[in-house]
């Protein structure tokens, strides 16, 4: 990662302005050409450095008002099948395998979003029926204390 790339990341990570020519505005701030900026962003998108370029929604405002972290105890040989069922399930946004810890036997994590608590529970029940994994809990969100874009290279440039 060279200095220009680091500056580009710090300039764009908190988002682009909502205006007709957002990339021109960012390029001006960076002191580079709009073409050079667009080329760099397209390259990053092609090689997966940028996983996605798009709008990040506030799901609570968009009607998906409830979310729960589903945690599941899945044996090693059943993980692939579980993940296939969970990730194709409507309402599941993420699925990760994480280490278990003492008193917490769960190793698969699914983020479940719904319009109500019932809808989240129904999503989990369907996953249970499909996978036969019965050891699980739903940890409903009680409060969102922070949700912000990640700050990369924070000490090398302004985050804003």
């Amino acid at each position, binding site marked *: *990662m060279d200095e220009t790339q680091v500056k580009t*990341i710090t300039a764009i*990570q*908190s*988002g*682009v302005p*909502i*205006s*007709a*020519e*957002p*990339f021109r505005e960012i390029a001006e701030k960076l002191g580079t050409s709009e073409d050079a900026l*667009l080329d760099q*962003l*397209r390259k990053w998108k092609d*090689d*997966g*450095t*940028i*996983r*996605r*370029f*798009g*709008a*990040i*929604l*506030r799901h609570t*405002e*968009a009607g998906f008002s409830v979310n729960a*972290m589903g945690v599941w105890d899945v044996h090693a040989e059943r*993980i692939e099948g579980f*993940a296939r069922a969970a*990730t194709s399930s409507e309402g*599941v*946004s*993420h*699925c*990760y*395998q*994480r*280490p278990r*810890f003492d008193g*917490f036997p769960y190793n698969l*994590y699914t983020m479940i*979003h719904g319009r109500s608590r019932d809808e989240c529970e129904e999503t989990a029940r369907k996953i249970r029926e499909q996978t036969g994994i019965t050891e699980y*809990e739903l*940890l*409903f*969100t*009680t*409060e969102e*204390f*922070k*949700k*912000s*874009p*990640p*700050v*990369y*290279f924070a000490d090398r440039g302004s985050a804003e």
Partner: protein
Amino acid sequence: MDELDKRLLNVIQADFPISPRPYRVLGERLGITEEEAVSRTRALAESGIIRRIGPSFDSRKLGHTSTLVAAKVPVENLREVAEIVSSFPQVTHNYGRDHEYNLWFTLICRDESEIERVVSDIKARTGVSDMHVLPAEQMFKVRVSFEF
């Protein structure tokens, strides 16, 4: 939010055009003018539905590493502890949850040693010692779009 807003959200969350006039491209896809695409997007941001428009980087490709952390916090201290946790710039998400492990947050750091340092700082500043670092061992798919 009308039908057109919903269609706009479906398109804009999946794929914002990386081009000089992105709203012209979006407008063409939706059959509206560039001006209307800008003004509808702005209204969705002002009403709070759109948080931001921008890139989601793969933190590993930027040489960063991320993890989830679970903490068991005395209920009466939850808010105070959560505020301390949120004050760290490495903390990107921080949620209260209805479980004995009632505070869950994510960290993005330069490397493992920064994760260790931040977690030990958080422990020291909050007095909470029951805290588990849970890095993803496998990531199955990140579905990002919600259908409206």
